[in-house]
């Protein structure tokens, strides 16, 4: 699927299979939250982000209202993606909101800012995906912090 934010003029493409996979993995942890890292790369004009894969955390804590992941033991996987052709790298993070909407909580916003501004993160604008779901439906929210403001992407086609 392709998503875009018209105001900033940037878009995201994410493979439907990957989306399905993330939802599947996330729901397995019900009623707890869960999440991971997003892998991908940019289009030649740097206007589109392709999200291609996920890396799941080795160590994490999770409850119905909290998901804390560590970065221990994932280095090798990041290196492997980086050596691929085309090169793939860390582009953001995802996590679930069981029984809730994909709207960033205050804790999410704090984490999004920390990550965006972290010196260890090479890219300027990591993407944050929240998967909100309940028994009936699942909703995705893709967010970016761009020039200090949070923007949400909207679906343009499937």
């Amino acid at each position, binding site marked *: 699927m392709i998503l875009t934010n018209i105001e900033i003029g940037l878009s995201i493409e994410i493979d439907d299979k990957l989306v399905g996979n993330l939802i599947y993995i996330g729901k397995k942890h019900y009623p707890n939250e869960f999440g991971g890292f997003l892998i991908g790369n940019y289009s030649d004009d740097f206007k589109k982000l392709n999200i291609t894969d996920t890396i799941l955390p080795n160590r994490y804590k999770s409850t119905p209202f*909290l998901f804390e992941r560590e970065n221990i033991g994932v280095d090798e996987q990041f290196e492997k993606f980086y050596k691929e052709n085309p090169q793939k790298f860390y582009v953001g993070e995802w996590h679930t909101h069981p029984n809730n909407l994909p709207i960033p909580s205050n804790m999410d916003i704090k984490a999004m800012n*920390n990550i965006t501004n972290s010196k260890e993160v090479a890219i300027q604008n990591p993407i944050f995906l929240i998967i909100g779901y309940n028994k009936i439906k699942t909703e995705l929210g893709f967010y970016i912090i761009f020039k200090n403001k949070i923007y949400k992407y909207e679906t343009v086609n499937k």
Partner: protein
Amino acid sequence: MNKSEHLDSVIKTHQITKEEKLLNKFRERNKEVKDDLFEHYKGSIYNPFNSGSYAKNTAINTKFDFDLIAPFKRYAFGTKGTLKEMYEDVYDFLYEKYKDVAKVKKQKVSIGIEFYADSENDIVKIDVTPGRELNEKQYIEDSKLNLYVYSRYGKFDAGSERIQTNIQAQIDSIRNRATTEKDSIRKIIRLLKVWKKTKFDYPTKSYFLELITIKAFDNKTIAGNLWDKLKTVLEYIKDEVTKDSFTLKDKGNSSNDLADTLTESEKRTLSNDMKNILDRIEENDENIKTYFPENAKFKEDKKEENKYQVKGSGFFTIPPKNERFG
């Protein structure tokens, strides 16, 4: 729902928002000038009002012409006060009031206040036209005003006191016409003003272009797409302005002929310019961009396109440790 259509409308509305932001700046400044005049000339002035393009719904988005009419009472400047004294007094007042924040200068019948560019590089310009009612309290009945002509203006000499006009009627006429003829007249007027803006200090008044467009619609069958319509109006102007019989009656005062605001040679220039536009565009469609350019301001915004970027030189990242989401 058609998605693309929707997106198109989203983009357009964003542009309107930008336009509106600038328009609000004009409105604020406009109110400031209006209030200052009313306060300073308390008792000697009727309510100042706007007669400019904005009120006429023909504003071009880069620059709104805000014309503010200051209608003075007959004896505002004494029983023997002249129109020149009125003009000079208003100039002196505005100059003192705004000299630190704007360029204040004398123009044909108005005083221009061009505020210095603000932090967003927007320039707001308000033209104040002082006018005086013909007889005591007559303005309330007929809305007529005598204006002072500062610089040479067509066949009226500088310093003359002859122009007399019912500005309110001018506004009403264009407003009514524009709404009944759908958008065509308005669009053509906009285009002609865009073209006029490409010329430096062009003698043809915007009001002249507005009236002649309306006259063209009165006298010609104007149909087809927007270019067909514009072309017909350009041809009409080219053919008509140089004719001896050419008149252009002011809707605000039928004894005032706008045709007289241009000299014979200025009319020939206008006609030649129309011919040039038509010929050059006939030769090459691309030339339409020269005569009717897009709004550079919006283009700049488009140029300054956002991109995903990296902070340094590489992309490789090990994500920061221990982040908590809720």
